[in-house]
C-alpha cells in the first residue's frame, strides 16, 4: 500500500511534447507507471513514445478518452497556473506540478480556487511522487528507493534523493515519497501528507525533510503531537542561511524573524520528533 499514487494511477502528462515532458515521460513509463495520455494544445492527434501515448488538445478531452485520474504538469512557469486550472476543471483527482518559478500571485489564485474543489495539488516546484515498484509521477529517480514501510515527505529535491538512497543502502524501503515542493504557497503541505501517512496501514514510520522559511514545520509539529502516533524523524536544512536571502527555493527565506531553522527544530523536538543533525543520521533515528 501507499498514498496518492500506485498501480491504479492512470497518468496524463501536460506538456508531454516539450523537452522535459518527453524525457520524463519515458522514464516514468520505463518505471512501470501507466501513462495513458498527453496534452499539448495544438498537437492533438499526434502520438509520442513510439506510438504508445496519444496526445490531446485539452485535458478534458484526454480524460474523457482515456480515463486518466492524475495529471502531471511539465509546462513552463508562465503557463503553469492555466495548466493547473485546466486540470482542476477537467475532474482529475490529483495534479502534480513539477514546474519551478510559478509567480506567487498565480499560486495564491490557484490555491484559493482549488480549495473550493475536490482535487489535490502537489507542488509546484517539486520532484513529484514515488511509490517504489508501483508508480513514479514526476522526476524522482526510480532506482534510488525500494518498497517498504517508511513514508517520506519533503520540501526539497536532491536532498530527498540523498535520504532515499541512504535508506536503500541499508535495505530500508519506502511506502511513498512525496515532494511537496519549495515554493512559499503550494497545494499540499506537511500536515496534509502526515495525515495521509498516519491513515495508510502500510506506512509505519515517517521521515520529514523541511527547510527554512514559513511556519509549515512548526504547524506540522503541533499536528504530530496531537494526531500522529507513528514515529517521525526529521531533518531541517538551512541552519546557516543568512536572514533576508532566498536560498534557491522561492520559499526558503527567513523574513522578519520567522522561518528560522532553530525554531522549527525546537518545535519538532517538543513534539517528540527525532531531529537529525545531518541527513546521513536519518536512518539511525528510525
Amino acid at each position, binding site marked *: 500500500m501507499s498514498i496518492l499514487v500506485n498501480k491504479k494511477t492512470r497518468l496524463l502528462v501536460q506538456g508531454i511534447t516539450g523537452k522535459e515532458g518527453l524525457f520524463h515521460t519515458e522514464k516514468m513509463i520505463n518505471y512501470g507507471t501507466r501513462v495513458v495520455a498527453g496534452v499539448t494544445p495544438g498537437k492533438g492527434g499526434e502520438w509520442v513514445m513510439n506510438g504508445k501515448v496519444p496526445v490531446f488538445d485539452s485535458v478534458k478531452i484526454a480524460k474523457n478518452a482515456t480515463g486518466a485520474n492524475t495529471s502531471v504538469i511539465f509546462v513552463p512557469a508562465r503557463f503553469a497556473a492555466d495548466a493547473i486550472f485546466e486540470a482542476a476543471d477537467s475532474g482529475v483527482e490529483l495534479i502534480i506540478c513539477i514546474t519551478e518559478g510559478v509567480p506567487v500571485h498565480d499560486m*495564491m489564485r490557484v490555491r484559493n480556487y482549488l480549495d473550493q474543489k475536490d482535487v489535490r495539488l502537489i507542488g509546484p516546484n517539486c520532484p513529484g511522487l514515488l511509490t517504489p515498484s508501483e508508480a513514479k509521477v514526476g522526476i524522482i529517480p526510480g532506482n534510488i528507493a525500494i518498497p517498504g514501510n517508511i513514508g517520506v515527505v519533503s520540501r526539497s529535491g536532491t536532498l530527498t534523493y540523498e535520504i532515499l538512497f541512504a535508506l536503500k543502502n541499508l535495505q530500508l524501503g519506502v511506502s511513498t515519497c512525496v515532494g511537496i515542493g519549495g515554493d*512559499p504557497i503550494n497545494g499540499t503541505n506537511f500536515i496534509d501528507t502526515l495525515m495521509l501517512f498516519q491513515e495508510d496501514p502500510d506506512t509505519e514510520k515517517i521521515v520529514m525533510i523541511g527547510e527554512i522559511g514559513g511556519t509549515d514545520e512548526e504547524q506540522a509539529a503541533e499536528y504530530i503531537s496531537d494526531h500522529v502516533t507513528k514515529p517521525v524523524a526529521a531533518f531541517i536544512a538551512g541552519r546557516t*542561511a543568512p536572514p533576508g*536571502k532566498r*536560498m*534557491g527555493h522561492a520559499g526558503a527565506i527567513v523574513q522578519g524573524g520567522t522561518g528560522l531553522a532553530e525554531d522549527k527544530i525546537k518545535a519538532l523536538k517538543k513534539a517528540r520528533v527525532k531531529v537529525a543533525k545531518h541527513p546521513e543520521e536519518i536512518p539511525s533515528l528510525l
Partner: protein
Amino acid sequence: MKLHEYYSKKRFAEYGIPIPKGEIAESPQEAQKIAKKLAGPVVIKSQVLVGGRGKAGGIKLAQDPKEAFQHAKDILKLTIKDLPVRKVLVDQAADIKDEIYLGITNDRSARKPVIMASAEGGVDIEEVAHKTPEKIIKCHIDPLLGLQSYQSRDLAAGIDLSRDHWRVFGKIAQGLWQAYIGSDATLAEINPLVVTGEGELLAVDGKMVLDDNALFRHPDLEKFRDLDIDKKTEIKAREYGLSFIQLGGNIGCMVNGAGLAMTTMDIIKLFGGEPANFLDIGGGASSEKVAAALEIILSDSNIKVILFNIFGGITRCDLVAKGILEALKHVKTDVSMVVRLEGTNAAEGRQLLKDASMETADTLAEAAKMAVAAAKE
C-alpha cells in the same frame, strides 16, 4: 526585486494614489533646480534600498533651493549601510498632521494577500507588530475577488480614522491593491500615509518588492533593479542561471539542488568550518556550468578549499565526474578540492576522479570533515 521609493511612488500615482510633487536628482545642481521649480520647503531623500535612512542623515528638510543644494551635496556623499547614495528624491514638503501605515503583502500561511493599516505610521512597522500587535488592523483579501470596499472601511474604522477621510482612504487602498496586483508585488507599502494640515491624504513614502518569478510579465520594471544591493558574484551567477549567495567563510560549496546546498553549508559549520557560499548548480552539472561556478567561487580570495557535493539521480555520476574534470581543464587554480559523489553510478564516477588524483569522499559527513581539515592547513 526591490523598487526604490521614487519608482514605487510613481507606480502608486499611476493607480490614483496622491503623492507629493517631486523629482529625482543625481547632482546638487539638479536638486537645486527642482527645489526652485517646486517653490517652498522640500525634503531631500536618499534613494537607497535600506531602512533607517533618516537616522543615517539620508533625509533632510530644506527651506529654499540653496539649502536644497547643500543637503543634496551632503547626502550624495553618504554611504548608508554599505550602499552608496547615487540619487536623491526632491519632494515638496508636506504639512504633516497624522501619520498612518497602509500595506499589502502575501500572507504565506493564509495563502492570501493581507492588507494592514495602523494609526502608528512613519515608524518601523515590524517593531509595531512586535511590541503592540493590537495597533495593526489586518484583513485578508480573497485573491479571486479582490479588495472589497467594506474591507477598506473596516480598516479605516479600525485605526480610528476620521469619517471625513473614509472615502479617500478607500480609494487609496483600492489603488494600492491594484498596484500590488498589477506589479506582481510581494509587498506594496505606504509608510507614512499622511493626513495633512489641509485635511488631505498623501503617500509620503512608498516601497514595493516584486516577485522575481513574475518579472516576465513586467519587462518595463527590470530596468529599475538596483544592482548595488547584490554582490558582484551574485550578479554574475544570475547571468549564468546559477543560484549563488556569498556568505564569508573559506570553504567554497558547489552543490546540485537548493536543499542539498543548504545542507552542505550546515554540515560544514557542524564540523567546525565556515562555508563561503550557497550555490545550486542545478540538475545536470554540465562542464560549462561547473566552470562558470568555479570562476565565481574562486573570485573570492579567501577560498581555501572547494567542496563538491553532487547527487547523481537521473544524471549519472560518471557523467558528472567527467563534467567536473572537463571544467577543471579550463579553470586554473591551486585551491584544494574535495568531491563527494553519490547516487547512480557513484563508484564509476569516484574512480574517474581518483584516477585524476582528486580527493573523494564516500559520505557527506566525511567530505565535510575533509574540507574543514583542508581549510585549516
